[in-house]
Structure formats: structure tokens, C-alpha cells
């Protein structure tokens, strides 16, 4: 483990009877980092997060958060932790104010940022006087963000944080993330909303079926993965064989075809494609979404990691 690692997970395995939640997962998150955690439903993101915050006991492996064991040292770790669950469940009969006060009482720490956060996220005093059961999903999520951040924790763990937030509030949320990292806080952000991760995170771990696929910087992930190649043919003959490029799952629309080609294969593929009657050609870097989907399509035996 690195001395500066806020989150240090080694060979983490969590099983539920015969079902594997996560297996042999390795992650290290440094102080001040916004770290993305990506994967489809059932990939093991929430299981990992629950191990990090001490709700689940690992079956095997090492979990250290801020140098502490999340289960054994829970009472020492929790004061430094802010957590937004993926499926935020609140007590419907409590008002927003009662909910925040209850959670602050349990936290046992001052809440210097509560008023500011409520104001910036658009939770008015009238909203806070209403029962949470009357809240929309977006309002509940705002309340969830306030309770996770109101005590100004050193480590913030957010599971699907922007679910239900309108675009304006999402902007505020990203501003809060930026401020948190500027203040030296560490953020672990789990999401399947790829643009969110692309925008907020420096590095990202991708998990599939409980296993780590890769840990890379967002930029490197985008750089290392597919190029989107678009071709338009001039002869109006529609879909046709593309030779070796048929291996890259061509998507036809009339005389236009789109392929996602790994960077090292682009030049070779283009040599073959340009022997065809091509009218127009564009090659662009695939977004994180494409990189992400590419990783899911291609089983990876050994996780890759960049520094």
C-alpha cells in the first residue's frame, strides 16, 4: 500500500453463499483524488463500497480506509466519512430537517456546511419542513448529498450521486466536487453515468462481474481504447463486405458505416477500407462510453493499471 493511499483494497473478495459479489479486487485511491468506479448493475460496485464503509465484512482480502479497518475500527473511521448510498432510503414520516438533525446527532459532529449546502442545492426552509415521504426523487437525492457532506468529511463515498438531479443541480454538484478536492478531500464516485465520471474523475476503475477490468486515468482510458471510424460510400450500393474490417462490428445506415477500431489496428484497417469507393471518412477518438463498452465486450484476464 502507498503511504498516501486513503483507500487501499487488496485481493478483496466478498461472497454471499455461492454468489460472488466481488473477487480479488485491488484498488488504491490517493488523498485528494476523485476516483471513479464504473460498472454495470451487478458488477460489484455497491458491494465494494459497502465493504469500504464497514457495512459488509469481506470474505477475504485487505480493506483499509484512511489506514483503518472499516469494520473493526468503524467508530474511529466513521467521523471522517461521508456516504451517499446508491439506493437512498429515508424515513418517510420525518421531515427533511428532522432527517438531517437525526443523522447529525448520530454523527456527533458539528455540521458547519448544512445551511450552505441546502441553499446551493436548492433545499429551501419550506422544503425542509415537509415530510420526506412527500419529496420527489431529486429532492431526496439533494437531502442525501447534504447529509453526506454537512459535516465536511475527509473522505466522501458517493454511489450514483447524480441520480434524479436536474441539470442545474448537477452543475452545483460538480462544483462541490471540485471544491472538495481543492480542499484536499478524497472522493470515491460510483456511477454508470459515464459523462459524469468523465467530467469529475481523474482515474477510474472498471469492474465487470465482480472482477476488476482496469484502473486507468480517464484520459488514458479514452486514449487506449477504440477510435470511431465513419465511412460514407459513393456508389449507393448499401451494406457490403468490408474485408478484415468486418471484425470491428460495422454498424450500417444506408451507405454509411461506423466502426469502433482499436488504435493499433486503425491504420491497417483503413488501408483495406480505402480500396473501396469511399466518399467521406472521419476518424475520431471514442468517448469514455465507447471505451467502457469496449471493455465490457472484451474479456480481460489481467487488470491493466497505469500510474
Amino acid at each position, binding site marked *: 500500500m502507498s503511504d498516501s493511499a486513503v483507500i487501499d483494497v487488496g485481493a478483496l473478495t466478498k461472497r454471499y453463499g455461492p454468489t460472488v459479489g466481488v473477487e480479488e479486487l485491488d484498488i488504491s485511491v490517493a488523498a485528494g483524488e476523485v476516483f471513479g468506479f464504473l460498472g454495470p448493475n451487478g458488477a460489484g460496485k455497491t458491494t465494494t463500497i459497502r465493504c469500504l464503509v464497514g457495512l459488509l465484512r469481506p470474505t477475504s482480502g485487505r480493506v483499509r480506509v484512511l489506514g483503518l479497518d472499516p469494520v473493526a475500527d468503524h467508530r474511529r473511521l466513521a*467521523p471522517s466519512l461521508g456516504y451517499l448510498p446508491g439506493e437512498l*432510503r*429515508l*424515513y418517510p414520516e*420525518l421531515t427533511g430537517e428532522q432527517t438531517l438533525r437525526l*443523522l447529525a446527532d448520530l454523527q456527533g459532529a458539528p455540521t458547519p456546511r448544512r445551511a450552505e449546502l441546502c441553499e446551493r442545492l436548492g433545499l429551501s426552509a419550506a422544503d425542509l419542513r415537509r415530510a420526506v415521504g412527500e419529496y420527489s426523487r431529486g429532492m431526496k437525492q439533494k437531502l442525501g448529498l447534504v447529509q453526506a457532506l454537512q459535516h465536511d468529511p475527509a473522505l466522501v463515498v458517493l454511489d450514483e450521486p447524480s441520480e434524479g438531479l436536474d441539470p442545474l443541480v448537477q452543475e452545483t454538484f460538480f462544483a462541490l466536487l471540485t471544491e472538495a478536492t481543492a480542499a484536499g478531500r478524497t472522493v470515491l464516485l460510483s456511477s454508470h453515468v459515464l459523462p459524469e465520471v468523465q467530467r469529475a474523475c481523474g482515474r477510474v476503475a472498471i469492474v465487470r462481474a465482480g472482477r476488476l477490468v482496469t484502473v486507468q486515468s480517464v484520459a488514458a482510458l479514452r486514449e487506449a481504447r477504440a477510435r470511431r471510424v465513419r465511412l460514407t460510400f459513393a456508389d449507393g450500393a448499401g451494406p457490403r463486405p468490408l474485408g478484415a474490417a468486418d471484425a470491428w462490428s460495422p454498424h450500417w445506415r444506408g451507405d454509411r458505416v461506423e466502426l469502433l477500431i482499436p488504435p493499433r489496428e486503425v491504420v491497417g484497417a483503413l488501408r483495406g477500407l480505402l480500396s473501396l469507393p469511399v466518399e467521406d471518412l472521419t476518424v475520431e477518438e471514442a468517448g469514455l462510453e465507447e471505451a467502457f463498452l469496449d471493455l465490457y465486450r472484451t474479456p480481460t484476464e489481467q487488470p491493466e493499471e497505469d500510474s
Partner: protein
Amino acid sequence: MKHRYPLLWLALHRRRRMLVALLIGMAVFETLIVVITVTVSPQEIFAGGGRQPPGAFKAFSGSTGDVSIASYPGLLGGGLVHPFWIALQLTVIGSLAAAAVAADVESGTIELLMVRPISRNRLLAERTAALALASVALNAVATAVVAIGVVLSPRLHQAVSLSGVFVAGLLGLAFTLCLAGPALAVSAATSRRAYVIGATISFGAVGFAVNFVALAWSKAAGLRFVSPFHYYTPGDALAHGTIPWGSLAVLTAVGALGTAAAFRLLARRDLAP
């Protein structure tokens, strides 16, 4: 206002309307029992035709000794082992035992609570305290109503002492704690409130049935020792006014063992929906 015991407050606050309704229900029910007991002579019920009630009917008077339901202590004791009284007690136990752990796990709210700097022991301790407070309140209401009836009626006061009423109330509390312990253990081990409520009802209903069968059928007499109703004897307490220390110890010990098991089970389990 800052809550010193937020988990206790939460458990009671969320169920405050139900608890108030149960307390009123208990007061009304015991008032009816007292009024009926005062207005109807026990001899008119069973002994008028020269018959005595069957021995197993002692199960309905809360006695394992010599107290017949055809007596004032027996009739008042009947109000303290009546299915309605049992139902009210089981509702409080089942609801608050489920609220201790299982309900929060099932609903997912446990994720908000247990990422705070509080221990699992504190969670269960505050929730156990909430259950104990509700049980104390319910038994206090029942005891107070019966005590007022005894004070106001010379006929009752002649047959039942006030100390007997308070001993019966104490046994009632021990009985509820006896059922609460295992119910808390189920709550600490499961993630479904229905399991806790089902287990609580089973403890109460099966316990009553086993005691009745043991009293009615001599070959099954030994079974009575596994029923909490063998040790919960408000009819005997009302008649004699003495504390049955052995029974009190058994009821309390079962409750304490169940609660201790709950702490142990909670410490070892995962806390996630």
C-alpha cells in the same frame, strides 16, 4: 433539539401513534375487565349450577396453582392473559423488535445509520431500550387500571390486595421481556421484519397453546415448563400477593439470554439490504 439517544427516539417517534392506540386499547380493555368482574359475581358464572370449571381453565385465569377463574383474582387474572392482552403485548414486541435491526436492513435505512460513528452494540442497546420502555408503559397502564379498580371496589379489594396487582404487573413486564429477548435475536439475525413479527406471534401463541395442553392433558404435563405462560401467573399473584421469584427469574433469564444472543448475532452479520 439535540437527541441524546437518537436511535431510541427514532424507534418510538416512528411508532408513536400505534403506541398511543395500544395504550388506550389496553386501558379500555382492562377497564372493561374490571367493570365486568365487579358487576358479575364469580359464583354466578360457574358454581351456580353446582359445577366447577375444568382445571385447564386455569390457563385462562393466569394460574398454575389453586386460583380458579371462578374467583375475583381469577377473573382479573383472566384479563391479564386474555388473547386481547396477549395481542397488544405481541404487537408492541413484534413491532419494536423488528424495528431494532431487521426493519432498517429491509428498508435500506441501515445504510444511513451505520456509517456514523456508532457501534452495533449502541444500535441494539437503544432499540432494546425503546422496546423495554414501550413494554413498561403498556404493563403500567394495565396495572394502573386494575389497581384503580381494586381501590374503588370494596368487593375486589377484599379478595385482591394492591400488592398482588403490582406483582401481577411486574410479572407481566417480565413476560414481555421474556418474549422480547428471542424476538430481538431474530431481528438481529434476519433482514425481514415479517420474520420477526412471525416469530414473536409464534412464541406467544404456541406458548399459550402448549401451556393449555399441558394443563388439560396429564400426559403432556411436562411440556408446561417450556411455555412462558407456565411462569407468567397473574392470577396466582393477584390471589396471594407474593412475588414468585423462581418464575420471575426464569422469565427474566430467557429475555436476557435472547437479548445477549441478539448482541452476539448483530456483531457478526453484514448490515446491508
